């Protein structure tokens, strides 16, 4: 058994035979020609034929994947009409007295190199489009057959990466999943996999090789793994996973659009936690009613320098818009402790969990904090955003945060930049200190959200990374549950709401107890939403 690891773009499991996408790449020979006029004529004819093919592909794509995804084939047509592109080819033919194939190949190389050199990931991706259109012209010139594969049985398609014209010509009925050496979450293959709802793993690199063609494999889209010739144990585990995925789909069918309500009529909101704007699809698919914790750290962890206001604004706005009016609670940066970022230049600490992290960084390095707040308040104008602050231990901290927010809003107002004024603000309850003063904190904020992982670690003084402490650890320790109850009572006394966004929120053995405490919201990982909903709907508090 060989195990390959890559990045998953769709969570599901499939098993079947690997079919390596065989591409008849045109082999370009360079030879001298005499009649340059005739050679240019050959090119023009081939180009017009390629344009006709693209017109047909556009029509097909329009039906299969819709206008937005089909547009690429219109752009391909425009590329073939581009004067710079055509002139370059004609110039090479005339000046070097060479064949049209060579001129097209050389021009394609030059133009794709231009895109690859651009400092924008989106534009770099367009190099593949130049290659794709040029390859089409070359195929016409050399009378090569189109690379379309006739698939006999359902297979897992493997390739370096598929270009748009290849994905659209695949017989979708015969595709179980995709495994790609390259590609990005925005590549055409990834988009197609998501729209088809089949597992796809990209970025497998050279570990995926053509020698695997015809072999039996399992694609685990949940873990981003491909098992080639799996052993019995893996096979059994994956069959179980596939079955569970299927059951989840059925559960979803049953529980989708059902209210989060107990038998006696007590209502609770079930939201989802996400760590990246790309996770929104999972939130919606599992029918969560909102996002209870959007960890903003990914913006900082994925960058080699501080993310700009614009970058953050786009990320927050995208999520808010995709959630279409449903609540999105964004937590401000929680860097430090186990999440380290080089460019923050944080000192090494003896005791990072009790150290310089989260709100403590924000309150001392206000430039970073203000950039994030500006982005948040601007994005709030596009959806239902709430802001939440981590690691709070005192009322003074909250007052300081509110002061900074006021400054930020004054600045935005002066600069005449649109933003939303009355954004709900809340705090994480994850330190015992915040619980002990939650009566006062509740007066200053709109909501609480309990981070049970840190609250447990700080309350029990147990480091969860330390395996030796396992025997002392009790996830359901009374001390922690009493803390949550105390915070809940204090929130409700001020008419505020309280949610739980840590791991305990998804612990269905505690759901009943949380409901009794009057917890208003549970935010769990997207894959747990339906399980928790199922549990809630079984409970009778009377």
């Amino acid at each position, binding site marked *: 058994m060989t195990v390959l690891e890559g990045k998953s773009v769709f969570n599901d499991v499939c098993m079947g035979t690997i079919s390596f996408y065989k591409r008849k790449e045109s082999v370009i020979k360079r030879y001298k020609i005499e009649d340059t006029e005739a050679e240019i004529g050959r090119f023009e004819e081939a180009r017009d034929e390629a344009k006709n093919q693209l017109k047909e592909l556009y029509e097909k794509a329009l039906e299969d994947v819709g206008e937005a995804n089909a*547009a*690429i084939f*219109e*752009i391909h047509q*425009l*590329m073939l*009409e*581009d*004067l*710079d*592109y055509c002139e370059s080819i004609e110039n090479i033919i005339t000046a070097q007295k060479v064949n049209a194939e060579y001129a097209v190949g050389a021009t394609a190389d030059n*133009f794709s190199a*231009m*895109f690859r050199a*651009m*400092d*924008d990931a*989106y*534009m770099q991706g*367009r190099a593949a*489009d130049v290659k794709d259109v040029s390859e089409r012209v070359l195929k016409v010139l050399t009378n090569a057959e189109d690379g379309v594969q006739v698939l006999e049985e359902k297979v897992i398609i493997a390739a370096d990466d598929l270009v748009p014209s290849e994905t659209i010509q695949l017989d979708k009925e015969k595709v179980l999943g995709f495994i790609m050496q390259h590609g990005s979450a925005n590549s055409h293959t990834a988009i197609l996999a998501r729209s088809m709802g089949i597992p796809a793993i990209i970025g497998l690199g050279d570990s995926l090789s053509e020698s695997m063609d015809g072999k039996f494999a399992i694609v685990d889209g949940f873990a981003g793994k491909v098992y080639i010739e799996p052993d019995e144990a893996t096979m059994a585990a994956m069959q179980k996973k596939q079955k569970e995925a299927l059951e989840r789909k059925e559960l979803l069918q049953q529980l989708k659009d059902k209210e989060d309500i107990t038998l006696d009529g007590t209502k609770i909101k079930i939201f989802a936690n996400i760590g990246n704007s790309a996770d929104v699809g999972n939130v919606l698919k599992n029918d969560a009613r909102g996002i209870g914790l959007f960890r903003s750290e990914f913006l900082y962890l994925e960058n080699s320098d501080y993310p700009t206001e*614009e970058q953050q604004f*786009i990320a927050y706005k995208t999520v808010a818009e995709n959630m279409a009016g449903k609540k999105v609670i964004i937590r401000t940066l929680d860097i430090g402790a186990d999440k380290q970022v080089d460019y923050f230049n944080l000192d090494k600490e003896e005791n990072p969990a009790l150290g310089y992290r989260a709100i403590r960084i924000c309150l001392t390095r206000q430039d970073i904090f203000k950039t994030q707040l500006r982005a948040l308040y601007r994005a709030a104008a596009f959806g239902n955003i709430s802001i939440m602050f981590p690691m709070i231990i005192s009322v003074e901290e909250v007052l300081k945060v509110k002061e900074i927010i006021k400054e930020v809003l004054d600045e935005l107002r002066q600069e005449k930049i649109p933003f939303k004024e009355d954004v709900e603000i809340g705090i994480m309850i994850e330190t015992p200190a915040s619980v002990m003063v939650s009566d006062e904190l509740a007066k200053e904020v709109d909501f609480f959200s309990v981070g049970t992982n840190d609250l447990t670690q700080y309350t029990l003084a147990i480091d969860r990374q330390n395996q030796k402490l396992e025997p002392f650890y009790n996830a359901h320790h009374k001390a922690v549950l009493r803390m949550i109850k105390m915070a809940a009572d204090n929130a409700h006394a001020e008419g505020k709401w309280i949610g739980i966004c840590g791991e305990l929120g998804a612990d269905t053995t505690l759901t009943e107890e949380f409901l009794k405490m009057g917890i208003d919201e549970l935010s769990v990982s997207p894959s747990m939403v339906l399980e928790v909903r199922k549990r809630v709907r079984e409970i009778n508090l009377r």
Partner: protein
Amino acid sequence: MKNFKYVIKDELGIHARPAGLLVKEAGKFQSAVNLKSNGKSGDAKRIFGIMGMAIKKGDEVTVEVDGADEGEAIAALEQFFKANL
């Protein structure tokens, strides 16, 4: 010759799709249509030229139209930029 200035509002700047639409729009007119931005210039009837300018959100673009139907063209293009970019 006529011209107008426009600041790009589209989040992705002039990426492939609007570049394609712009080429089609500019192609409707006889007049030459040129874009200038960040010290670079490009022919609005050539898709690679426009994409190669890597015009981003917030960049100011000067659109120059020169030719027999420049009056009509500039009105249509100004409308196009407002609607699409």
